[in-house]
């Protein structure tokens, strides 16, 4: 169970950081064809924050408070570096995620 929660925490941290990056104007332009409206931008930021919080919850469930407070910031650091490098080298990697979250609910 512990490795699964660790994997979930890592995945949630990466998705969360990617969404937080996409909510910024510069990265939105590089990865998303849709128009950046304030409502869409807010929604992406909210989803990003929720995903990083989910990562914290997975860390707490899998490792307890003592380890989670160390693990979570370092997972976010890893996720931020991965997202930053993806955006600078191959922003296309994040396009499917951007397309998924900016779809209007109609």
């Amino acid at each position: 169970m512990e490795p699964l929660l660790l994997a979930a925490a890592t995945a949630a941290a990466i998705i969360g950081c990617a969404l937080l990056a996409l909510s910024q104007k510069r990265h939105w332009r590089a990865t998303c064809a849709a128009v950046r409206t304030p409502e869409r931008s807010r929604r992406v930021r909210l989803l990003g924050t929720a995903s990083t919080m989910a990562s914290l919850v997975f860390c707490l469930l899998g490792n307890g408070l003592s380890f989670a407070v160390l693990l979570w910031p370092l997972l976010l650091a890893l996720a931020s570096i991965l997202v930053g490098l993806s955006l600078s080298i191959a922003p296309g990697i994040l396009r499917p995620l951007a397309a998924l979250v900016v779809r209007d609910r109609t």
Partner: protein
Amino acid sequence: MTWLHNATGLLCSALLFAMFWMGTLSVFDREIDQWMMPHTRLAASDRSISLDAIVRPIVDELGPRSDIYLYLPKQREPSLRIGYEDSGSFKKRYFDPWTGKELTGRESLAATGFIFPFHFSFHIRWMNLGYWLAGFLSMGMLVLLSTGIYAHRKIIAEFFVFRPDKSLRRSTLDLHNMTSLVALPFHFLLPLTGLFIFFSVYLPWPAGILFGGETEPLFAEMYGSRSVQAAGRRAEMASLDDMIRAAESRWSGRTGYPAAADIVRLQHWGDANALVTARRVFPSRQVAMDREAVTFAASTGEVVQDFKSLPIRTAHAWLSGLHFIQFDHWMLRWLYFGAGLLGCVMIATGLLFWLRSRERGKAPNTPGFQTMAAMTVGSTTGLILATAAFLVMNRAIPHAGFKVLGQDAASLEVWAFAVVWSTSFFHAAVRKERAWSEQCLAIGLFAASAAVLNWVTTGHHPAAAADAGLWAVFAVDAMLLLSALAAIAVSHRLQCRFISMLQTASQADASPVDAR
């Protein structure tokens, strides 16, 4: 704030890089120890050992001594280590924990004896100057981080921004900002906890007031240390296994999971007043370290003291454990290693950005700029090269008795480190811009040589090491080979860039009108 950031950076960065680099390597200190001392290489096992069968014959043979320390085998250090004072120095001996056979071989300071102490004391022992220097640098790091957030105002807006295709100056700043910010809590906590660990060096006065200047009662209060005088009468000793089991069952009852002792102190073993203290210094499943100790009367096996730290010391134990990272959590260990490398990149790019910002005009010809440029190369690539030389020398020394100018094998490794590091500064001063690519190439060659020499001298190439369950050796070799590839690739790229710079400059010289 910007001037303070620049001034502190210029003053501290070179040594801060050394602290970060050595600290980063110390995350895998036990693994590097096994690599550098092949006679201690054993496959990790969860089997418990019998101290009565294995240790008693050894300590009985050692005779009456005030202190003997037993470092019980763990996953990251599978051999049994026994340490004691001998002729004025602390002697360490390694044993196979299941057969009791002594593991002898060439001595080396390795990571726990050289790299780790370098991280917090630079091996300067005179008047604790090394500790004070490390404390000053830690304070400098905290100032740099606080002022950096102000100096690089757009840091939040550009959180995920790295533009390698822009100018070198711009991409250096991007990398500096990114590496500082993504691991900011780590970069902030580690120097801070380092200051907490050595509180008794930096702030000795409170202990002086409370305990009348005595350190012994302070340590008794903090760590449950207990000293005793020898009675001078021999006595039969109780079972070591029974005492350790009794301590472990007390801890397991409190924690709710199996808790194991890792360090056992034997005081005046064989004497009627002898004490045995079992400690859980580095618990495998918790961050806080060294909070519990059970002391027994060795002649009867009765509990004399069951120590558990009080709340303030528990907070100190958590902060220390966070810094020492000796718990069993491989994901966290690798994340610490990665964050440590990010810290190194942050410091190096900070220095580089300062240089790049002053490259135009007359500044590059001034002695101040050239000194700073040489210092940047020597303190970054030079230090990495010196570390690689340390490892190469370890594997290149043919046998235990080998000496050069009276220096034994362990000293020769340190000499190799010191000579290569100091030479790297002169090389940087002479070769200027070319020094970067040349030192990177040397790092690549040294790192690859270290891995090959390990294969030649021990037969443990990465596949053989993995096959024998020697994952520490496999990991160190793999990291050496990866570092070699990365360093050679960087060297090639820097060389191409340098050639293109020279071509651009010569074209500009050849047609000054066109160039204008």
